[in-house]
C-alpha cells in the first residue's frame, strides 16, 4: 500500500535518535511513495516530530538510514541537507515562521530567488502559488497583519513554490481553530494532489490525519502495527503483562 511495490521516494530504516538520555526514536521505519500523503500520528513524546525531522534532514539520526531518491540523507553534510531543504523538500511548522520584515509576496519569492530565479520570475511564480492557496489578496501584507490560517497558507505556498517533491508539515494546524485548520488542510491536499507532491504530516489530531492517504502511528519511538514491526511494538506500552501479549498470539 505504501509504495505500490515500487521503490519508495523516501524511506527511513530502523532509525534511532536520543536527546541526552531521552530516546525519541527506537527503531522506527517508514516509507513514503511518490505523491503519497502520509500522516505520522501519536501521543506527545511518541517520536513523531523527531521522525519527521530525520526524514526532512533537519536532524541526523544516531543510527539507521534515511534514503531519498537513492541518496543517503543521514550521511549528507549540513550544506547538502540545507540545499535539499531549499530545493526538493519544503518544510512547514506549527507557526508559519515567515520573515516579518518582508511582504507576503517576498516571503514566498525568497526561496525561488535563492534557487537562482530572477525577481520578476520569482514574483510571478509566488503570485501563482499564493492564488492557489487563496492568499492573493494578501500579497502586499506583512506577516504580522495575517490571521494564523492565512499565515499558514502563505507558508505552504512558500514550501511548494520551489517545486518541492515532498512537503514536511509538523503540526501545521496545531495553532488554528477547526475552520482555519480545515481550509489550510484542504488547500494543502488539493495543491499536493494537483502537483503530485508527496506530504509527510505530523499531527496528534485524527481529524487532520484523516486528510492523508495513510496513517503511521508512533508509540515509544516505534511504529505501531507496521508490517514486520507489529510483534515488537504492538502492545509494548499497552501492557507489560504476559496475559495481553500471550492472548495476542492466540488471536492471530
Amino acid at each position: 500500500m505504501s509504495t505500490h511495490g515500487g521503490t519508495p521516494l523516501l524511506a527511513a530504516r530502523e532509525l534511532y535518535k536520543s536527546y541526552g538520555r531521552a530516546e525519541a526514536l527506537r527503531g522506527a521505519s517508514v516509507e513514503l511513495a511518490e505523491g503519497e500523503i502520509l500522516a505520522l500520528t501519536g501521543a506527545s513524546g511518541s517520536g513523531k516530530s523527531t521522525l519527521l525531522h530525520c526524514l526532512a534532514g533537519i536532524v541526523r539520526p544516531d543510527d539507521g538510514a534515511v534514503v531519498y531518491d537513492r541518496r543517503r540523507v543521514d550521511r549528507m553534510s549540513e550544506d547538502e541537507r540545507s540545499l535539499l531543504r531549499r530545493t526538493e523538500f519544503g518544510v512547514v511548522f506549527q507557526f508559519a515562521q515567515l520573515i516579518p520584515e518582508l511582504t507576503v509576496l517576498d516571503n514566498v519569492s525568497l526561496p525561488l530567488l535563492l534557487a537562482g530565479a530572477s525577481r520578476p520570475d520569482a514574483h510571478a511564480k509566488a503570485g501563482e502559488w499564493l492564488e492557489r492557496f487563496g492568499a492573493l489578496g494578501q500579497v502586499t501584507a506583512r506577516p504580522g497583519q495575517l490571521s494564523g490560517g492565512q499565515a499558514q497558507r502563505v507558508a505552504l505556498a512558500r514550501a511548494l513554490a520551489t517545486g518541492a517533491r515532498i512537503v514536511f508539515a509538523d503540526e501545521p494546524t496545531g495553532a488554528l481553530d477547526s475552520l482555519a485548520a480545515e481550509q489550510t488542510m484542504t488547500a494543502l491536499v488539493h495543491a499536493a494532489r494537483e502537483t503530485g507532491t508527496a506530504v509527510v504530516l505530523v499531527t496528534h489530531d485524527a481529524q487532520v490525519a484523516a486528510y492523508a492517504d495513510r496513517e503511521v502511528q508512533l508509540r515509544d519511538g516505534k511504529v505501531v502495527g507496521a508490517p514486520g514491526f507489529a510483534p515488537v511494538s504492538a502492545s509494548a506500552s499497552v501492557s507489560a503483562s504476559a496475559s495481553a501479549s500471550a492472548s495476542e498470539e492466540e488471536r492471530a
Partner: protein
Amino acid sequence: MSTRHIVLGLLAAGPSHGYDLKRRHDERFPQARPLAYGQVYTTLQRLVRDGLAEVDGTDADGGPERTRYRATDKGSVELAQWLGEITPPAPFVTNEIFAKVVVATLVAASGESADPAAYLREQRAAHMARMRELTALKTAPGTDLATVLSADYALNHLDADLRWMNTTAGRLAALTEEINTA
C-alpha cells in the same frame, strides 16, 4: 430522532406532496439513512390524525393523483416547542466499543482468549478509514453545505471515540491489574 418533527419542519416551507418531502429530507440529511416513501406516508397520516397537518388539495399533472399536505396551527406550535426543547445529555454510558473493551479485558484477565489491545487497534483503524472517507467527501470541490454539516457531525463523533480508544489503550495494563487484584 423524530421523523414526525422533521416532516413537520419540512412542511413549514409550504404545502408539499409526500414525494417532495422525501426528496427534500434526503437533500438536507445526505448522510442519514434515506427516508422510505412508505415512512413519509405513514408519518403524514399520523400528523393528520393528531391534527398537526391537513390535506391541502390534490394535484394530477397528467400523472397519478397526489395529495398535498400542509401544517396546521397546532402543528406549528408543536414544531416550535420541539425546536426549543433541550435534548438531555445522555444519562447512561452505553456504547458497543466501550462494552467490548471492558468485557475483553475481563475475559483476558480470566485467562480466556481475548485481546482488548488488538481489538482497539483494529477498531481504531476502521474509525480512521471512515474518517478518511468522510474527509474526502466533505472536501471534494463543489460539495454542498448539507453534506459538509453532516460529515462534520460524523467526523467529530468518530474523533471522540478515537480519542477515548487512544486513552484507553494507555490504561489497559492498569485496568488488567485492577481486575487481577480485585
